[in-house]
């Protein structure tokens, strides 16, 4: 259920690392817990964030939740299709529901990122 080519955080974000860039989204578990997503606020191209810094918000009917960046970096692209179709985050969190692409800050510490198997174990330990 959680693709093996991605790395995960304990805040339920994922990142796909491709050289010095990364694509970031939220996990299946996160979208399911949020419920129907109705609004997403993403950063602008060029904005830079530290590891674990809040880079935007996702809103369900009930609540606003912050998005935390798995790795420090600078925003290369934000998924503008989500503006008019935020529910894509529910239907395809690992595909069309991606949030941003970043240029990963050189030397950013990656040891906190979880493999797919470790993330599954983390979820199991939470429940």
């Amino acid at each position, binding site marked *: 259920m959680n693709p093996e080519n991605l790395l995960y955080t304990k805040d339920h974000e994922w990142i796909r690392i491709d050289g010095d860039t990364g694509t970031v989204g939220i996990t299946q578990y996160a979208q399911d817990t949020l419920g129907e997503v*109705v*609004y997403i*606020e993403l950063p602008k191209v060029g904005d830079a964030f530290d590891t674990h810094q809040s880079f935007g*918000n996702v*809103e369900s*009917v*009930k609540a*606003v939740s912050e998005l935390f960046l798995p790795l420090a970096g600078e925003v290369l692209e934000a998924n503008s299709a989500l*503006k008019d179709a935020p529910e894509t985050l529910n239907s395809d969190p690992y595909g069309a529901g991606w949030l941003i692409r970043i240029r990963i800050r050189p030397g950013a510490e990656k040891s906190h990122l979880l493999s797919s198997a470790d993330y599954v174990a983390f979820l199991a330990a939470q429940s």
Partner: protein
Amino acid sequence: MPTENGTVVDDLLVYRESADRYVLVVNAANIQSDLDWIQSHHHFDARIEDVSSETGLLSLQGPHAQGILQTLTEVSLQQIRPFHFIRGSVSTVDAVISRTGYTGEDGFELYFPAEHSVSLWNSILEAGKPFGILPAGLGARNTLRLEAKLMLYGNDLDRTTTLFEAGLGWIVKLAKGAFIGSQALARQQTEGIQRSLAGFEMMGREIARDGYPILFDGREVGRVTSGSPSITLKKNIGLGYLPMEHAAIGSAIQVLVRNRPCDARVVPTPFYKRRNE
């Protein structure tokens, strides 16, 4: 239940069971403060009893409520008018069956001895299966009550908001004689109010949430007391107290969403009214 200042101790329903027996259905969060208030103003030959913990309450709401509940009781539900109640047996449990609710839809609330809560819940869910019944929690109820502009105590009403400001003048009967708060309310009726609870809708996709500042011309003029997406209307709606000059229908205001002023407009309320009303 007003204070001396015409503000609100709690928003509650009073059931007149007989000429000398009344039941108050209060907000669960206010049980203690309501009891304290009543006891401190109690100069009558009356006994006050808190039966909260031994009383169960289930609410069955929606257009099929009567059809579902009728399969569980001999009582003719058709005869119960809105805001009226009757005593009867529901699925063998002795209950008060009340045509009330907090959703803006038709529906019933059942009061019964708390130990029957689980069995009655299960019976209702079973009886409702052919109708497509679903359990609903506080989140769903909050959206529905806001669409119907049913106020939430602690958000839209409290001890700082007067009944007239909240648009509840229709329940204030000054001609019926003195009551706690009647002097203040009579004065306010003569002098007029400075602010009023207004409904608004967002012009864009941003969602106004409880507590967000409401701006006019960059200046804070109020706060969102309740804000949410409206599932039924597919708009983002909210309530807030606004100075009279900004409270008129059509007034352009802004809501500050995470430091970004977002356009909104004062609209008529309730936001949603069910068709057969």
